[in-house]
């Protein structure tokens, strides 16, 4: 509670003053530092380029001892993000047994961006997309672009 707020406030200040390229951060609700709205541009050179993705970062009350959760609010067609309303993202560093209290939100955001650049089909949540990614790269790119155009504008 109180402690997590201190750490969160600190990180929020960091991220706001020096956000990763293509990312902007704001509080979903000014009085609650546990929920952050993230706007992330599709990294250039990826099928997501040109899209603007909205994500929601939720920091648990026992942050940083427990990992935050990061969900895509904008639908994204990606092997590691569920293609549904939830947009749950499978980000290695956020897994319970991998999470380190020392991990910074900044690094989470960069990791998320990196995942857009380099999907990880071996750890996919959307098997069909992963398969396409592995077997038909061109088709994957095309489809991902289409969905980006459709949802992320």
């Amino acid at each position: 509670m109180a402690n997590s707020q201190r750490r969160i406030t600190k990180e929020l200040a960091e991220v706001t003053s020096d956000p990763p390229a293509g990312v902007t951060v704001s509080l979903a609700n000014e009085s609650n530092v546990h929920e952050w709205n993230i706007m992330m541009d599709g990294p250039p050179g990826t099928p997501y380029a040109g899209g603007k993705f909205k994500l929601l970062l939720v920091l648990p009350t026992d942050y940083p001892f427990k990992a935050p959760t990061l969900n895509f609010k904008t639908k994204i067609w990606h092997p590691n993000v569920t293609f549904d309303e939830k947009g749950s993202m499978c980000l290695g560093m956020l897994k319970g047994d991998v999470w380190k209290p020392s991990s910074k939100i900044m690094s989470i955001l960069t990791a998320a961006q990196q995942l857009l650049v380099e999907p990880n089909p071996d750890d996919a949540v959307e098997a069909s997309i992963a398969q396409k990614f592995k077997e038909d790269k061109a088709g994957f790119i095309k489809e991902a672009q289409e969905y980006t155009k459709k949802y992320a504008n």
Partner: protein
Amino acid sequence: MASAQDTANSSGDAPRGGRGRGRSRGRGRGGSGNEGGARRGRGGNRGAFAGHATISEGNGNGNAMNAKDLSTRVAKKAEGETKPEPEEDDDAEVCFICASTISHHSVAPCNHRTCHICALRMRALYKTKDCAHCRTAAPMVIFTDSATKHYEEYSTSDITTTDENIGIRYENNEIVEDTLLLLRYNCPDPSCDVACLGWPDLHRHVRAIHHKKMCDLCTRHKKVFTHEHELFADKELQRHMTKGDDNPGAVDQSGFKGHPLCGFCGQRFYGDDELYVHCREKHERCFICDRRSGQPQYYQNYETLALHFRKDHFMCAERECLEDRFTVFETEMDLKAHQLEKHGSTLSKDVRRDMRNVDLAAFDLRTSYAQERRGGGSQRDQQREGRGRGRGRDPNAEPLPASSAQPLRRDEQAFQRQMAIQSAQSVSTRTFGGQLTSTPAAPPQNVPRPAPNSEAVATAVAGLDLADLSPQEQARQLRHRGVIERASTLLQNDQTKLSQFRNSISSYRSNAITATALIDSFFALFSDTSSNALGTLIREVADLYEDKSKADSLRTAWNDWRAINEDYPSLPGPSGMTDALPQGWARVISSTPSASSTSSAPAKSTRVLKLKSSTAQSSRSSVSQTRSWGTAGASSSSSASSSNPFPGLPTPAGSRPGNGRITTVPWVAPASSGSNTPPARPTPPPSRSVSRATDAFPALPPAAKPQTTIFGYGNGRMVRRDGGTASPSTNAWGSNAGSSAGASAAASENEEGSGQGNGKKKGNKGKKQVLMGWG
């Protein structure tokens, strides 16, 4: 708690924040020497205690408690007073993890540092001994005041106290004391420094002294130090349970939305995970619904779940399965498969056979699937051929290679002709109808000689009807009326069809036709009706006959028909279908139009085109057969032509009752047409086919007839009406039979004809042209 102060602080100066937190009682002593005196004094007091204490909290004996209480109180006060304190100095070190000022350092073997509070929190509360920075296992950490000294530089002489349990080695007793302080059952009230002996004691204390409560769930599950818990007044606790601190606009929110409630038990759980575990263990969920949608739906117990199974799914009712539980299926077909497999031995043959029936009503067919099906079906059909000629499945219908099929074909033709002649003689149009259905379109094409004939027939029929009815007794008349009503409903009040229907019945009565033929004619008439409905009707009709043997043979005929035709659900096959089930086709076709007309005409057309292309070949190859095909195709075409003669016929389309067939229809329709001549497809309102059949009669004059004649017909038609379109298609057939070349010619003719035809069927025209391409 000190949250108000905190937030005030943190909002002002985030990184360094205030130190006013109630929790960090010892923190004040951290970097500043201000309080030094007091602290040291305390330390001294407690020295003895700490020394002998093994650091387990339980150790606080009475005396020590008092001393400690005192000291903490002092500490708290000091904290409160010294708010604006030295710690905010620039050189104050901040813990990387909690972003608070460090009072004591914790050094892990990997030489990563945190504040002692974070280290203790992880080790004592989260039960993990990994380094907070790198997750390296740290069985022991050193709590020290030195900000720089490395882990390996500590020798045993540097350590005053060791806690093997949580794995901490202390550099001095002061740190021990500060650490132990955190682990006691301290009262969360910021102004109270009572440390209790345990949870019960603390709860009692809080209630008695502060008139507040602590959340039982939080105290059990929440990983915070005792004094970090919250105190609630009754109402606040209620709110905490149900809504958490979700209070829009409030300053101190954490996103905690209250403890989730199990709706069945009325019990709350600490978090969703705990609730999930509870539900998994105590309640049931429906695996079928789970599969369908992600949202888990729970049932209180198996009994309620079973109710759900029965209501919404297909549950096996066998006793052993009921005892086994969870023998339930998503579809009826799965259930039947299960019953046949597991309980097949206990079922009667009839039941088993029925079970093998697949109700296509709700079936969404995929082309490939249907094709497979078809292959099997056609063989069977051939075998069966001998039996019910006029029946639904025309064995010959297959677009198969001409050679093999030929013999059958002729056979059939001969048979048909014979039938046609007979029927003509007997005047009962009915027969025709029957024939037509089975070999659907055939008659129409040839038959185009229409209007006059049909009228004659109609009158004949009427006569029969009257004769038939007059002598009946009242009761029977009632029943009779019932039947007629049912029939007219099924026929959508189509008077023509209705009279056919009557006609058929009376001719059966007068032995003009056999029961089988009667069934066939019914089938033709009620092409849109589900076989169940038809069965009911037929049973009623059977009841009307005074002559028992007549009734029985009708029933038998019906059963036979079903046995033959229903074994094999008339799966709408794509192109291939032609072969198999003419009736099915007929049905399909007739329904198709309606379907298409009502709904998605365009979709269908595209499909048609596709099918055409795929089928084009087969149709060509089976030239000679085509003729007979033509019949099949004819159904559609005939229907079209029929429309002319009987323009008044309402297309059933709109009103078609939602029997499952419709779904199938789209597929089928295209398929059938595809296999035949493409032109046939475009056929308009197939529903009429039946009526036409009636009028028409001559299902027979088949292919043989010169194309020219046909053409003539076609043209004439065209002139007359849009029906013309259909007729042309017929031609096309005829031509096919003759030669491919002829076919093409015919096709072209068709085109023209259609062109002249009517504005209505523009879509059709387009199709035809495409077809032409094929030809």
